[in-house]
Structure formats: C-alpha cells, structure tokens
C-alpha cells in the first residue's frame, strides 16, 4: 500500500495482505454522498473494491444484478428503506452477507435489523476500523462454511468437539471463556477482530467496551498460548483490535 497515512485504516492495511484472499468486492448503499465517497476511498485503500448506490431501488438493482462479497447498507434510504432492500434480496434468494449501518440507537434496532435478514449491525457513529473488520469477517464467512472441527494456525490446534487446545502437540489447558475467545479468533484467523466483535461473539453483549476489559482477557489468553513458544501468534492491531495469524 502506497497511500499516505491518513487514518487508522492504514495501520490495518499494512498488516493485512489482501492478495491471498483475492480482492473483495462490496456494494455500499448509502444516500449521504460525502460518507459514501469517504467509505469507497477508505475501502479501496484497504484493498477492497467498493461500488456505490445512492438509493434503495438502485441498491436493490445493483445487488441483484452483480455478485458482491458483502453489501453495506444504510438503514434509512430514499425510495426504498434499507430493511426492505434486504428482505427483497433475501426473497430473490440472494444470500450476500449484509451489514446494516444505522443512525438509530442500539439495543432494539439491532434485533429488527437482524430479523429482516441482515447479518451484522453497526450503529452510527462508528470507527472505520470497526466497519472494515466486520466487512472482512463477513466477506470471509461467505466462502468457508463453518464446518471445520479443528482450527489450525501454525502449530496451534483447537478441537471444537473435544474442546482441546494443543500447541506443537502439547495440550494447553484453557478456561471455557478463554476457549471461546480463542475459537472465535481462530475461526477468523488472518482477519482483524475488534474488541466489540469479541464482546459480541464471545460474551454476547452488543456494545462498545469502553475500557480494557477485553484486552486483559486477550492478554491472559496470549500468555497461555505463547508463554513457552518463540513464535508469536496473537497480534494486537493498533487502533483496531486483534488478529491471530501464522507469520512463519
């Protein structure tokens, strides 16, 4: 990446070689032109091709005619609202993962959004790093159905059936919550996961943890899986979150 360092997305892009994933292609349906231009540019800098539709009907048309890895949709749109675009896409058997952006508050609207067929929900205002991490996880989810029994990253193995974690063949005992934390990180190996995503998927609470609670859990987990090994696996991505990856 050669773009000038302008926002925190870049610190992500540096640690995020996209070449091995193939260029992800997404559709942004957003009526605020300024926000759309910013998002398109920011996604491009992160190695993601982004198309833009500025109202619900256009978005529905583009989403039905082209193939995208992820659709990012604003909830309030002219001509056809976000939730109805999603339901219409799902009715047409288009199962592209959809991330809903919404200026509406958190608790209850998330539920309606997900009920309408959305796959993830991000309330405005949000940090771009959060959006990017979620889009990447959604885009990856599409390709690999979640069927693996054993997740592997380098010499670290996690068996989802026996709930055993091994590194270099040696078992590492983990608390149940630590196991779920590692499971989520390894499921999304090579992807940035944010603190909010961890709180959502490991603890099932949906808001932005404002303090270091999640970091402390991650660093405990890190010390267990990296203590006796020279090769670090679990990286902290500044301004974004965490990523587990085999650098070797």
């Amino acid at each position, binding site marked *: 990446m050669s773009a000038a*360092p302008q926002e925190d997305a870049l610190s992500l892009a540096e640690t995020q070689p996209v070449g091995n994933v193939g260029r992800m292609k997404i559709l942004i349906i957003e009526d605020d032109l300024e926000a759309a231009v910013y998002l398109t540019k920011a996604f491009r800098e992160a190695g993601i091709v982004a198309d833009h539709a500025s109202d619900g009907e256009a978005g529905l048309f583009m989403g039905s005619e082209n193939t995208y890895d992820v659709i990012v949709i604003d909830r309030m749109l002219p001509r056809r609202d976000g939730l109805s675009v999603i339901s219409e896409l799902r009715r047409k058997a288009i199962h592209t993962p959809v991330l809903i952006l919404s200026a509406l508050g958190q608790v209850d609207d998330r539920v309606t959004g997900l009920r309408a067929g959305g796959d993830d929900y991000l309330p405005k205002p949000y940090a771009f790093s959060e959006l990017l991490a979620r889009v990447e996880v959604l885009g990856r989810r599409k390709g690999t159905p979640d069927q693996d029994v054993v997740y592997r990253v380098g010499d670290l193995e996690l068996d989802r059936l026996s709930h055993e974690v091994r590194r270099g063949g040696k078992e590492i005992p983990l608390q149940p919550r630590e196991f779920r934390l590692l499971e989520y990180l390894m499921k999304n190996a090579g992807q940035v996961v944010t603190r909010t995503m961890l709180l959502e998927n490991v603890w099932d609470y949906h808001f932005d943890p404002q303090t270091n609670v999640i970091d*402390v859990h991650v660093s405990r987990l890190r010390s267990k899986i990296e203590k006796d090994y020279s090769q670090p696996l679990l990286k902290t991505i500044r301004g974004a979150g965490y990523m587990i990856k085999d650098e070797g």
Partner: protein
Amino acid sequence: MSRFRVLFKSTAVRLSALYILLFAICAATLVFYVTAMSERLLTGQIRDAVKQEVEQVQRAYDTGGMNLLLRTMERRARQPGANLYIIAGPSGDILAGNVASVQPGVFEEVGWTSAPFAYQRYTDGGGVERRHRAIANIFVLDNGLRILIGRDLGDPERFRLLVRQALMVALAIMGLGAIIIWFAIGRNALKRIDRMSDASKKIMAGDLSQRLPVGGSGDEFDRLSMSLNTMLERIEKLNEGLRQVSDNIAHDLKTPLTRLRNKAADAVDMADGEARRTALEGIISESDQLIRTFNALLMISRVEAGSVAAEMSPVELSAIVSDSAELYEPAAEEAGLGLSASVEPGVEVQGNRELIGQAIFNLLDNAIKYSSDTEGAGTVSLKLARRPDGICLSVADHGPGVPAERRDDVVKRFVRLDESRSKPGTGLGLSLVEAVMELHNGRLELSDTDPDKPEQRGLTVSMIFPAKAA
C-alpha cells in the same frame, strides 16, 4: 346571553336536554294512555248502568203501559244524580223530561248516540254558558214516542281535565328543575374547565412548573387533572434533563474538541514521519473518545425516552451478574484489586439483558477505576440478593467514595467529582445506570461501603429492581 350559549355547547347540558326531552315524551304518552284507558272504563260502566235502566223502563212499559212508564221515569228523574230522562215526540220535540234542550239531531238516531252530545238543564237558566255533555240510549215505543235515557259525562271529563292539569304541573316542575340543574352543573363544569385552561395557557407560555388545579373530591375532573399533572411532571423532568444536557454538552464537548483542533493544527505543521503519525493517531483516539461520548448520550436518551421498553423479556439476573464478574475479574486483577461475587442463583427479572449488562459493566468500570489508586482498597464486591423491598444488585468498592451531599450530582450527565478529569471516561456512566433502572421501574441507591472510615469510606452502588410479581 352568550354565557347561556356557551353553556348549551357543553356536552353535559346537551345530553341532559336530550334526556329531559325523551323523558317528557314518555311521560306524556303514558299519561294520555292512562287517561284514555280510564275514560273508556268509566264510559263502559255508564253504558252498563244506562242499559239496565233502559231494560227496566221497557219492562215497565210492557207490563203497565204508558202510565207505568211515566211513573217510573218521573220517580227516577227526581232522584239526585246526573241522569237524563226525556220523552220526545216522533219529530224529536221534547214532550217531558228533566232536560230543557238537547243538541239538535240527537233524536234522529236510535240506540246509542254515536258521540257525546251537548244539552241544557232547566237549572242552567237558559244561558248557553254551561254546556253539559252526555251519552244516551234512545228507543222508540210502538206509539211512535221516543224515550231517551242518558248519563252526564261530567265525571270522566273532569277526571281527564284533572289528570292533564297534573301532568302539566309535573312537566313544568321537571323542566324548571332541569334548567336549574343544567345551570348548576354546566356552570360548575365550565368554571373548572376555565381554571384548567387558564393553567394550560400559563404552561403553554413556558411556565412548566404550573400545575392544574385539583379540587380534592376525586371526581372525573380531578382524575383528569391529576393525570395531566403527572404528565407535566414527566415533561418537566425531560425538559430539565434536555436543558442540562445541552448546557453540559456545550461545556464538556468544547474541551476535547478544542484539544482535537489544536492537535490537528499541530499535525498540519509537522513534517511527514513518525511524529506526525503519532499526532494523527492521537487525533483519532481523541475522536474515538468523542464518538463514545455521543454513543453513550444517544443510548441514555433512547433509554430515557423508553423506546426500548418493547424489548423487555424475562432475563436471568444471576447469569448476567456471573457473566459480569467473569468478564471483569482479569481487569480488576490487572488494577491490583480483587473481585468477589456473591450471586443468589435463579433470580429473574423482566428486563433488557443488554441494558442491565451495560449498567453493571459501567458500575464495575467505575469501581475499578476509582478504587485502584487507593492504598489497600482490597476488593470490589459484586452482590446479587433478594431483599424484602426488591432485588438488590450492588457493586461495592473501598475507594475514596462520594460525599453524601454530592450523591445526587454524580448521577447527572457529565458530572464527575474528579475536576481535573485525570481518569478517562465520559461522565455518563451513572446517568445510564439510572436511566436503565428507571426503565425497569427500579431505583439507584448510593451509600458508603465503610461509613466508619471517613478517608476511605468507599462507594456502594445498588440497583434495586422491583420484586417480580408472581
């Protein structure tokens, strides 16, 4: 008479007028029916009596001829009472009897007169001022003479007149009473409504502290006033909150925004490189903090507006508390504190898991944040227990605590006791907890953990949920 017109516009008066009209129609119908029926009954009795007499007179003529008939009739005519006995010639001229004249044409009929007819007595003195009415039976003898036997209708006529007069008087009294009641009710209602609309006008003019008058009788007006007053209280509170928030937002967001602006201005002047990058990252984390503040504000206002109330369901409080303890235990340890949890199992409330979770997280954040600097602060304890007055969820720390007189303040938005703002935070944590408790019909209580130690009294924040109705 504009006052009267206003009065007539009131619903109560219109309804009562309609009621009175209907009642009058019913009463009149009833009275006329009753009079008609009793008149018919009386007339029937008269006819029976006349018929008997006619038979007797006929029998007298059959047995004793004209002589006996005349004697019988004369005897009867002398008896007191209002009977009519006439013997008339074939052409209808009166030959004998106790009546001076009858309405012309009466003798053209035979049998019952088809309608009551008028007649005059000898005692009437020839004038026409007193006209009597009677019904009669006329029969013809074999010598061509016509015999009329009848009865005066004075009694039934007077009876009818009397009943009608009584009815008129009753209706008049009723109408008068109705008008008086109308006026009393209407005037009273109007007065009270006027008072209410006066108060409303003051409120509309911006004086939200005004309240509608409550009479104290507990009638429908009082109930309405009380509901409206409760509504006003809520509006006033929301309005007050709004004003406070906008004041505080202006005040509290200005500082970080200024800082942000200055950092950006510095970064503009820097040469490309590590220093500039660090400055930009500082700007980003400063903006993230602002975004958090806005998120928290939005969250509080949504909770306060009650729009999330629809998402309430039975939630296991015990599980949320255990989750929180588990989530925060490493963070507490990192801060050099212990975290002890005493959780009564199986406690359930009607609520929103996310909001309760976030409220507990806020309290734990605060407890860890404010007691970690205190020497020997020991542990933060999280406790969930059923109490007689409800379900109590408390977070206790052994930090510096909050003086009793500032306890109301710290719950307000953006209020932080730490004037230097050295600890990170939005100053919104407790506001959210309070809003969440209000949404759950519960309350928030602040108290000392160790009241005996003035320097380190600690703070216990209790979320009291109403005991679940069985």
